[in-house]
C-alpha cells in the first residue's frame, strides 16, 4: 500500500515504506490561468411560486345602535 510522495523525501523511513515515487524535481512552473478550472458554486434555488399574501383580519363591524324606544 502506498501513497504519493515526492522523491526528495525518500530518506524518511516512513515515506520510503509507503511511497509512490514521483521522482526528482525538474523545474518550477508558475501558472496563472486566465480562467479558473473550477465550476461556479451551486445556485441557491429561489421558490418558484410567489409567497402567500399576508392575511389581514377584516375589521369588526361597528356595533349597530338600536334607537331607544320613545315613550308614547
Amino acid at each position, binding site marked *: *500500500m*502506498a*501513497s*504519493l*510522495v*515526492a*522523491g*526528495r*523525501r525518500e530518506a524518511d523511513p516512513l*515515506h520510503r515504506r*509507503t511511497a*509512490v*515515487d*514521483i*521522482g*526528482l*524535481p*525538474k*523545474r*518550477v*512552473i*508558475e*501558472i*496563472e*490561468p*486566465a480562467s*479558473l*478550472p*473550477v*465550476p*461556479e*458554486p*451551486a445556485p441557491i434555488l429561489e421558490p418558484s411560486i410567489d409567497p402567500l399574501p399576508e392575511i389581514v383580519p377584516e375589521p369588526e363591524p361597528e356595533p349597530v345602535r338600536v334607537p331607544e324606544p320613545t315613550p308614547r
Partner: protein
Amino acid sequence: MKSAVSVVHGLPVEVEVEPILAWRSWTLTGRRDGEGLLLRPVTAGSRAWRPREIAHATCRLAWSHEAPNADCSCGLHATREIDLLRRTRCPAVLGRVALWGRVIEHEHGYRARFAYPQRLRLICQFCFWQGSAASAKPDVVSWYARDLLVPMCVHHLGVAEANGMRPRRILPAGLVDLRLRETYAVDALVI
C-alpha cells in the same frame, strides 16, 4: 506561452497560463444513501477535496513555507502516467486534475499549490491493482463503517465478503458515479 524568469532552489522557473492536467486517485466517503460524497486523499489525515472549491495545498511539516516547497514533499500530488497510481493505497476514484499556481514538476509527476478535478470515474481498486484502469469498472459501491465507500466489481465483492469484509450496504455503482460527477460538476473520465 512560457518563459524562463528565474531560478528557485536551483530549479528553473517558468511562467505559463494553461493549467497542467495530470492523473490522481482518491478514496471516497459518503452517507449510506450515497449522498454527501467527498473525495479524500489516499494519505490519512490529509484534507478532503470539497465539491466546487479549489483544493489548496498546505504543509504540515513546516509552517514557515508555502506549499509546494522545492525542499519539501508538500503540495497537491498528481502523476504524469496513470499506471503509477496502481501503487496508491485504496484508490476508489480515478481522475484528471487541473493543477495551477506554483507547480513543481518532477520526473514522474507534479506537486501543485491549487487543483480541482476535471474528470472522474469510480474504479474497482482490486482490478486496478491487478490489471489496468480500463478493466477496473465497478458494479457496486460498498458502504462500510466511517462512511467509507469502496467501489467493487461483483467478483471482488464476493472475495471481500468471503474474507470478512461484509458491507453494511451495497449501492449501484452507476448511481454513485453519476452523483459524484454531479456533486463536483465534472465530466466522466473515459479511459
